[in-house]
C-alpha cells in the first residue's frame, strides 16, 4: 500500500485530508509540524509527502532544506498559500514534485496525489 505523509499544523486539514485519502486505499500518516515531520520521514519512508509551507514553528521550506541537506530525496508536493516567487523558485531548485495552491480544489489534489502514488483511477 502506497504511503502518504501529510504535514500541516491545522488539525482540520490533517484529519479530513487523511480521511479523504484513506478512503482511496492510501496508507496515510500525519505530522502536525516541521520537527515532527523530520523525525517521521526516516522512520515511515513515505512515497509522497504533502508539505505545507507556512506553519507555526518550523516552516515547510526549512523542512525541505533540511531533508535535502540530509541527502533525503523523499518526493514532496508543496502546499503553498500566497507565497512570493522567491520561495517557489527555491523550492523548485530543491526538487519538489509540484505545487498545490491553497485553498485547493479537492479534485485537483486527488488527481495529483494519486498519480504520484501510482494509483491513477
Amino acid at each position, binding site marked *: 500500500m502506497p504511503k502518504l505523509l501529510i504535514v500541516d499544523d491545522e488539525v482540520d486539514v490533517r484529519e479530513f485530508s487523511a480521511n479523504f485519502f484513506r478512503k482511496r486505499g492510501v496508507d496515510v500518516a500525519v505530522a502536525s509540524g516541521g520537527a515532527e515531520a523530520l523525525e517521521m520521514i526516516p522512520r515511515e519512508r513515505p512515497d509522497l509527502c504533502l508539505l505545507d509551507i507556512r506553519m507555526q514553528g518550523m516552516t515547510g521550506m526549512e523542512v525541505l532544506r533540511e531533508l535535502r541537506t540530509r541527502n533525503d530525496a523523499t518526493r514532496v508536493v508543496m502546499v503553498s498559500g*500566497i507565497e512570493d516567487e522567491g520561495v517557489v523558485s527555491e523550492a523548485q531548485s530543491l526538487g519538489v514534485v509540484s505545487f498545490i495552491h491553497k485553498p485547493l480544489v479537492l479534485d485537483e489534489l486527488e488527481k495529483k496525489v494519486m498519480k504520484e502514488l501510482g494509483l491513477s483511477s
Partner: protein
Amino acid sequence: MTGIVDYIIKYHLEIYPYGYFSALLFIGIIAYAIVRYRLMDITLAFTKLGILIVVYALVLGIPLGIGWRMFGFGPWVFPTGAAILLSTIGPFVYYFFEREAEARLLWEQRRYQKTLRQASAGMGRIRELDKLLGLISFILTRTVKIEHVGIYMFRKDTRTFLLSSMRRIKTGEWSLPFELPGDMLMMKAFRQDGAPLVYDELIHSSSEEAPDLARGMSGLHAALVFPIFIRSELMTIVVLGPKIRHTVYTEDDISVFTILGNQAALAIDNALFYQDMKQTQEQLFKAEKMATIGIMADGLSHQINNRLHAIGFVSGDMEDTLRMKRALFASPELEDIAQEFERGFRRLEENVVHGRNIVQGLMKYTRKGEEGEAPCEVADVLRSAWEMAQFKVKADSMRIVEDLPPEGLRIRGNFTQIQEVFFNLIDNAYDAMMQRKDEMKEPGFFPTLRVHAQRVETVVALTFKDNGIGVKPEDREKLFTPFFTTKATSRKGTGLGLYVIRKIVEENHGGRIEMESVPGEGTEFRIILPAAV
C-alpha cells in the same frame, strides 16, 4: 396763528383806527423775543444781508455809477444790468450742469465700482474653487455684458490649462477647447509682460508675434484675454468674447479686469490652498488606511486562506464520503437527507472558491503586471474585454455603442491591465444597468453602455457612460476603496474592481480616472491614459 391775531377783522368788528392793532402787537412781541432771547441767529442773517448789499452795491453800483456819469440814464442800462445779473447767476448754473453731466458720463464707472465692491466681498467668502470660478465668470459677463467667458486653470501634472468654468450668453456652433497647451504663444506672452491681450490691438499691431497671437485668440473666439498670476506664476487665464453690443474694449474695461484679476488671484489662491489642504488631509487619511491594510493584507490573507482551506477540506471530504456511500441510502427519506447534505457541502465549497477569488484578487492586482508597456489599439482592448465579460453578460441583454475615431487610437500601456480596466467597467455597468432594469421596470429601457474615445494632445480620453441605476452621492467617495461594494449580495462583487482599476490607471499608467453619476439615470467614468506616440 394769524387766525388769533386778525379774527376781529374777519368778523367785521371795526374798532377804528386800531383794526390791525393785534397783528402789529404780535409782530412786535416776536421781534422782541428774537432779539432778546436769540431765537434765530439774527446777527448772522444781518451780516449775510449786509455783505450781500455791500457786494452788490459795488458790483452793480460801480459800472452803473460810471455809466450814469458818462452817459446819463439811457437804454444802455438794460443790457448792462442784464449782463451783470447773469454773470452773477453763472457760477450756480455751471455748477448744476457739471454735476448732471458727471453723473451721466461716469455712470459706467460707478457701476463697475459697485460690481467690484460686491465681487470682492463675494469672492472672499467662497472657498470651493468651482463655485468661485463660476462667480468670477458671472461677474464678468454681468458687468461688461460679453458673449462668453472661459476660465482656464493651470494643471501642474499635465502642464496644460484646463477649461474650469464657462459662461455663454450667445450660443453658437463652436465651443471652447477643453484643454490648452501650457507652451502656447499666448502663455509665453503673458509670462513675459503680464499684460492682457486685446484682439483689436493685435490685428493693428506691427509686432512680429502679433499675427500668431491674434490667430491663437480667434481660435478661442476671444476679444480679450487676460492673465491672472498667483505668486508670479501664470495660474489662470480668462478668455472674454466680444461685447454683446460689439463695441470695443475701453481702457476702463481693461483696468476693471486688472483689478478684478488681482482680487480673483487672491481668492483663487485661497481656494486652491483650501482645496489642497482638504486633499492632503484626505490623502493622508487614505494613505494611513492603505498602510494599515498593506501591513494586515499579507497576514490576513494567509489566515483567511487557511480557514478557507480547512473548510474546503472538511466539506469536500464529507461530500466525497456521501457520494461514495450513496448505495447505502436506499430509503427515499435517507436519499432526501443525503441530497440536502450534498447540496449544503457544495454551497460551502462555492463560498470557499469565492473567498479565494477575493484574496487572490487583492494580491494579484496590488502587484504590477510583468508584461511591458506597448501601444494598444483601443478597439482591440475593448473587444477582448467584451469577450471576457461574456462569461457573465449575455450578449443580447445589453449593448455597447462605440464612438471611436475611425483611423484608430492607441494607448501606451499594458494590454492585460487595460483590458482588466475595460472589463471591470463593462462588468460594473452591466450590474448597474441590470439593477435599474429589475428595480425601476421602465418600459422601453434597454441597457446601453456608450464608449467614447478621442485623442487630446498627448493623452487618450475615454468615457464609459452607462444608463444604469447610478451611484448614491454618499457612496461616491467610497467607490474606489477596497472591499466596498454596493452590489446586491457580497457574492456578486468582491469590492476590489474599482480599487484595482484606479491603481492600474493612476499608479501603473500615470493616468487619471474620475466618475460622475446621477442616481436613477446612469454613471459615467472618465479615464485619461497616455497615448502611444
